[in-house]
């Protein structure tokens, strides 16, 4: 028989579609118990357009090829002590933030996409989600393997798993993903597949990866590059999910819009950590957070939402507030970490004159007016031997879990406070965005595991700061405090001296 030539789409359909069937010995609603309670209406799963038609044979082939190359780079990085070739010891703190704050989210994505990959009723999205589950396992493992080399020589990495479940600021990314994981499968796909992987991903990975490139961290650059083709699959999945949901039924629009609003704001708050990393932690700067926001959200996101307008979807609520906050967020966050350096798992420092000039140039509207004076004051205090530490435990926003340090939109001298009452208790928020999220799901967000509350309730090892730090497995005097005088810095300096001698 003469075999007919198969196009990619047809071949994929034959090899994947049709594998599933309508169950008859068990009701379909028992087999797929979780895809109805959210109120999303799917009338025809077969309308799903497979965004990438990857069969397992090609998946294994492509991914194996990438892994061979990546691990060859990692091996030579280790052999050549690549960790000592970065721009400056301060840079290493950026990857501490990455390993403790981001890599555990990759793991969460792995398990979350397994959930979606089991529970979405359509075979197309199920297979796509399963592949993403596998990819996300790749990401967490390649990140751990890459950063493993840094862990051998620098502090702040060794307890990343223990810390992610406990440390106050790490509850910001952790609660973000716990929120998505505890949502239904459609909200999860919108939260992670669309809002995170599509709308905000460039604001997370581009800063870290180009930060790595600018600062001579070839290992991180390599895993970043290597993950890029996975990410482009994830992005196409994310956009397909949105289009599919909106095309399936008009009743889906208000639900999806609410999720887009929620996850945009949730994501924006988590990205505050990235903002601070870009503006303050990279010895060689790539661009400012504000510039990144303009390129990746205002412009790229603007075009995206224009495209989605035909489905009735509008730009996320409070996008304008987020854009205005781009003038302030990194400065306010770095100030928080500077004050609480004794409770942070990475080192802090005050920006140098040169860095402050760069910040003035990048933030002409705000830096000199509001933030430079603060840093100059703290610098004076340091000189006088009175380095400023904040020993009071801060109040946290119930939703995003960031200390209440953000200012009112349009008034950078007043801290923003919002609150709501639920079942006789009062809950506090940093912003209208966070308050709205709580008000939409108070039964969920009233459960938040808020680190400061937990400390007060005696659930974090004790009542004093040393008790809590011990409970964090914080190696006090090594993991925390200023970069100057840290063991990291000493080792770095010793190595550089030795290097100069060898070089003659």
């Amino acid at each position, binding site marked *: 028989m003469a075999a007919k030539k198969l196009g990619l789409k047809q071949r994929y359909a034959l090899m994947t579609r049709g594998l599933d*069937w309508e169950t008859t010995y068990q009701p379909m609603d028992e087999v797929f118990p979780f895809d109805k309670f959210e109120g999303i209406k799917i009338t025809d799963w077969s309308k799903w357009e497979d965004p990438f038609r990857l069969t397992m044979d090609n998946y*294994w082939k492509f991914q194996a090829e990438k*892994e*061979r190359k990546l691990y060859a780079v990692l091996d030579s990085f280790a052999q*050549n002590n690549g960790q000592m070739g970065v721009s400056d010891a301060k840079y290493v703190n950026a990857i501490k933030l990455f390993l403790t704050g981001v890599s555990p989210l990759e793991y969460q994505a792995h398990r979350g996409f397994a959930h979606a990959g089991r529970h979405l009723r359509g075979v197309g999205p199920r297979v796509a989600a399963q592949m993403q589950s*596998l990819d996300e396992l790749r990401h967490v493992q*390649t990140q751990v393997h890459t950063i493993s080399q840094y862990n051998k020589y620098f502090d702040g990495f060794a307890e990343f*798993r223990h810390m992610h479940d406990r440390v106050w600021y790490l509850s910001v990314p952790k609660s973000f993903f716990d929120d998505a994981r*505890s949502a239904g499968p459609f909200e999860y796909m919108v939260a992670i597949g669309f809002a995170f992987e599509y709308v905000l991903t460039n604001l997370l990975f581009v800063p870290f990866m180009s930060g790595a490139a600018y600062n001579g961290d070839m290992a991180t650059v390599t895993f970043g590059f290597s993950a890029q083709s996975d990410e482009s699959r994830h992005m196409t999945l994310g956009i397909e999910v949105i289009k599919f949901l909106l095309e399936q039924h008009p009743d889906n629009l208000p639900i999806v819009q609410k999720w887009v609003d929620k996850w945009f704001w949730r994501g924006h708050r988590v990205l505050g950590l990235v903002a601070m990393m870009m503006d303050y932690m990279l010895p060689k700067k790539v661009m400012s957070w504000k510039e990144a926001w303009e390129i990746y959200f205002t412009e790229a996101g603007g075009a995206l939402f224009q495209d989605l307008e035909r489905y009735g979807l509008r730009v996320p609520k409070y996008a304008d507030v987020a854009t205005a906050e781009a003038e302030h967020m990194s400065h306010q966050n770095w100030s928080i970490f500077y004050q609480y350096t004794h409770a942070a798992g990475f080192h802090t420092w005050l920006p140098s004159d040169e860095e402050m000039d760069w910040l003035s140039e990048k933030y002409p509207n705000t830096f000199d007016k509001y933030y430079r004076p603060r840093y100059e004051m703290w610098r004076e205090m340091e000189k006088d031997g009175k380095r400023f530490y904040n020993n009071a435990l801060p109040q946290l926003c119930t939703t995003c879990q960031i200390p209440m340090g953000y200012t009112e939109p349009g008034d950078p001298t007043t801290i923003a406070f919002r609150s709501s009452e639920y079942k006789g208790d009062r809950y506090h928020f940093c912003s209208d965005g966070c308050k709205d999220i709580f008000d939409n799901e108070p039964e969920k967000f009233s459960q938040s595991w808020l680190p400061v509350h937990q400390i007060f309730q005696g659930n974090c090892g004790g009542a004093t700061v040393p008790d809590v730090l011990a409970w964090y497995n914080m190696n006090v005097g090594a993991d925390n405090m200023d970069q100057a005088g840290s063991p990291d810095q000493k080792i770095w300096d010793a190595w550089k001296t030795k290097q100069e001698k060898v*070089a003659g």
Partner: protein
Amino acid sequence: MTVELRTMSLEPRRHTFGHIARRKGADVPASRYEEGTLDLQATDNFHYKPLWEPEYWVYDTRKTAVVMKDWYDLKDPRQYYYATYNIARANMQQAVERTFSFVEKRAMLDGLDADWREKIIDTLLPMRHVAWGANMNMTNICDRGYGTAVTAPSQFAAMDHLGMAQIISRIGLALDGNSGESLDTAKTAWMDAPHWQDMRHMVEDTLVVKDWFEQYVAQALVIDAVTHAFAFDIMDSAGQTKGGAPISMMTEFMVEWRAEQTRWVDAVIKTAAAESDANRALISGWAKGWLSRAVDAVKPLCAHVVGDASAVSSIEAELSARFAKLGLAL
């Protein structure tokens, strides 16, 4: 200068991460398998109860009745992490590609006896649906299971089943000249033919098992073993005199896969059963129940293909012996 720099010595300050050092001792380096697996899943201080299952946390040891002091005892003897897993499968897949082009170039499937060709279509090809059920169950175990040691290889197994379903699909396409007709016929058999109904019934029942370790026992220990032994041993050897040799070549992946998979599954089951008498009793009970069900479900298939079901008793005997070696009491 770079040459000299490389020779400059630099003492590492630690060998691995804290959570691994606490397991192995601080002065031992850890493997990539260990660093990419141990304690990777969050364990504490979850923020919100799942909207879809508020009686549990997302990661919750209570989702199975099996109790382990340390879920990371369930290690994978293959020591797979993502990279080594994919590289292993890519190598196996290379052999598949060679075989398929070898068989297709020589039009070897034309040599199938007509009645055997029919059997391939109505009894081998529907195995792709069995594989799809397996894919769902192993994905579910990755979702609901506890601890990366067992959940990560479960996702690998899920993708293996998808890959094998696709190899079977390709056999169908090779048979029907890429029209997909044979796959449709196979699906009709899966849905309606009497010889498939016990099997489909059982597979559908596994899809709703709530205890993920029971699901693991049902799927990975029992159903994979029974269905593969039927399709790739019994049916395969029955086909040898009917021109079925190219089919053996095209399903070699499954044979290799089963040998490898068995090492992993046996390690998991043996360790979990050895943990306590309670575990042993639970797992034995599940194994016994699902084994008798799987054996019954495969009998009509066997009778359909080779005329009678007596060959199935050898599968049962072999598996009973294997389970006994794992410490199970059947």
